[in-house]
């Protein structure tokens, strides 16, 4: 009798242990990764070029970065927003994560599949294609504000990357590159004019806290050839230097160019 009771108690103890096993395989801390894609919708021709670049090279680009795959206890959050005639940062996000350890390799592959993120990008591209044909988006362009907002908005603790697809031609009531691209000497006053003071303060506070963010600017030529690519690039280089972001920014022509991350 005693041995039967002992055996039953052993089995019950085993079951309790197994039941609690879940807590051992759960991740205590999740490592966060974030990717934010900003697509310029201020010109339909520009947007088409951006689309072609994305469809041709996005797969190769992502597979070559750390952001292309996730491991145990990692989460990748991908957001897409437009750059256009509004200052607002309207993002749509999707994420994939592996929240447990000790999974089978098949399960890991399934959870790390970026299909939901690719689906988001594709759906947004379809949406933005229509948006790029609306006058509201094409008349003006608020690039600096949206980029700074996106930097401020990113998760402080995450390893993050911002992909900006644009011709980088700022065109609004404050600054209009079609009229004049401000010289490097006036960059501080221009910065204060371009960026809202509250936003700028938030940005500077964020910089003080420190951030692990890379900014890749895929600069396309202005479709109407009204601006010089080089001058535009020089402005933004000075602007980013003014904001102390120059060490974290890279300019490329398209996603097939090699980047250092």
């Amino acid at each position: 009798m005693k041995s039967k009771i002992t055996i039953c108690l052993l089995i019950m103890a085993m079951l309790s242990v197994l039941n609690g096993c879940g807590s051992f395989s759960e991740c205590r801390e999740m490592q966060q990764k974030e990717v934010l894609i900003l697509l310029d919708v201020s010109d339909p021709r520009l947007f088409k070029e951006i689309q072609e670049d994305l469809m041709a090279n996005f797969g190769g680009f992502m597979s070559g970065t750390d952001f292309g795959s996730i491991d145990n206890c990692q989460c990748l959050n991908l957001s897409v927003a437009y750059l256009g005639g509004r200052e607002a940062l309207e993002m749509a996000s999707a994420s994939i994560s592996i929240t447990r350890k000790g999974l089978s390799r098949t399960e890991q592959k399934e959870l790390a599949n970026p299909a939901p993120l690719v689906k988001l990008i594709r759906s947004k591209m379809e949406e933005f294609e229509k948006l790029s044909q609306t006058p509201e988006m094409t008349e003006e362009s608020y690039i600096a504000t949206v980029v700074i907002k996106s930097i401020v908005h990113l998760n402080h603790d995450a390893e993050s990357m911002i992909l900006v697809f644009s011709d980088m031609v700022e065109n609004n009531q404050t600054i209009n590159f079609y009229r004049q691209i401000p010289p490097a000497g006036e960059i501080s006053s221009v910065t204060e004019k371009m960026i809202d003071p509250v936003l700028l303060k938030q940005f500077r506070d964020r910089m003080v806290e420190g951030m692990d963010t890379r900014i890749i600017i895929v600069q396309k030529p202005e479709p109407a050839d009204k601006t010089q690519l080089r001058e535009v690039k020089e402005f933004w280089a000075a602007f980013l230097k003014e904001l102390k972001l120059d060490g974290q920014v890279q300019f490329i022509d398209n996603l097939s160019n090699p980047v250092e991350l």
Partner: protein
Amino acid sequence: MKNIIRLFSNVLRDVKLNNVPSRRPDGSYSWTHGQLDILKGYSFNKMKEFQLEIRQLSFRRESLLVDMLNMQNPASNIEQLGNKETRHLETATEKEENRFKNSKLELDQFEEDLFNRGICLPHQNDTDQTNRSEAKKKPRGLKLRAVLILIGIWFIVELFMTYAQWNSLREFKGIEGLVVRSLSFGVVLLMIHLVPHEISNFTKRIYYIFVGFCVLMLVIMLFAPLILYLIYPPETGFTTLQDQWTITGMMDSVQESPSSHYPLWVRFYMSFEVAPAVLCVLFYIIIYVSAQIQKKLRAEEPDAPVVESEHAGPRDSLADGLLKKREQLRAKIRECDTSIAKLKKEASDSLASNTESLNGILNILQSKKEEIFGIEERIADLKVEMECELKNVEKELDVYKTEYTDILRSDQTRSQYVTPEWPERIDVVNYYKV
């Protein structure tokens, strides 16, 4: 220096007085004055002391040896008596054990007879110590020990199998899945192992069915996943990372899991591979509970009709008689058991006391032996010292001889007529009588 002068003057005197060292006709040696002076020197007393001490020690040694020899008899007697007693007790114990076995057989026969005749005697408090002691003697821990051995074997085998199949297992199973898989094997093996110990509860047919079922479940657990994975390979159709990130127009939905195309039973088994182990446990529980219920029902059956005589008195009824007989048999068994225990205790006590006595004798012999060794060592030391003294004496005698010869040689007249004879060791030894 003093001794040399004295020796020389003795030699001169002996030569002048014509005192010649010689051997008597009977072979004994005739010492000169000078030689006697040497012999009676300081060594004389010492030699005498040595001699006395050696004699005393030898005497002591002899007496110790005699004591030791005298102890042989009591030891032999104790041993013989002890053996005799042990044999007697062993015989008595064997007799009692046989009586016990016969009584037990008789009781079992009696109870079987009652059972066959359908007579159910009322239960009494079983104060039968024999049965209890029998039950105690039964290896109660056998089942638990068997389980622990089984767990050990299972652990080692599972460790090896998991290590050998690690890569392929990890492809489709997480760590939790592996642990559950191993445990489910262990549970089925445990069920198969437990059943023989429960065999008294089951009929043979049920036992064989159960074991066959468990073996079948084991085979399914071993081979079914392999076969299913061959027929329905769990490929997810993953391509390269680059392809996964490529934005094309054709990907309208997330890739469906290929497993959604499998039949329902395959999907169920793949997600619940421990089902066979669970079935084995359920089966075991069902048949165990039914066996227990059956046993209980049998025990609760209305009492078999007690045979009553027409003029039954309390003492004269058959049941009373049978009860009485059963009690007698049980009492006999108890008596045998007590008697066996008593005899065994007596045997062990007797053995203990004999051993103690023999040990005492042995200790005494040991101490005497050590004393004898000590005496012999001392005698040897004394002999060595005596030898040294003898050598000293011989040396002095040699000096005497040399001087005597020289002086004699210088006297040509005397030397023609005198032929001294010189002593040998044996003469010195005889003088000192050592």
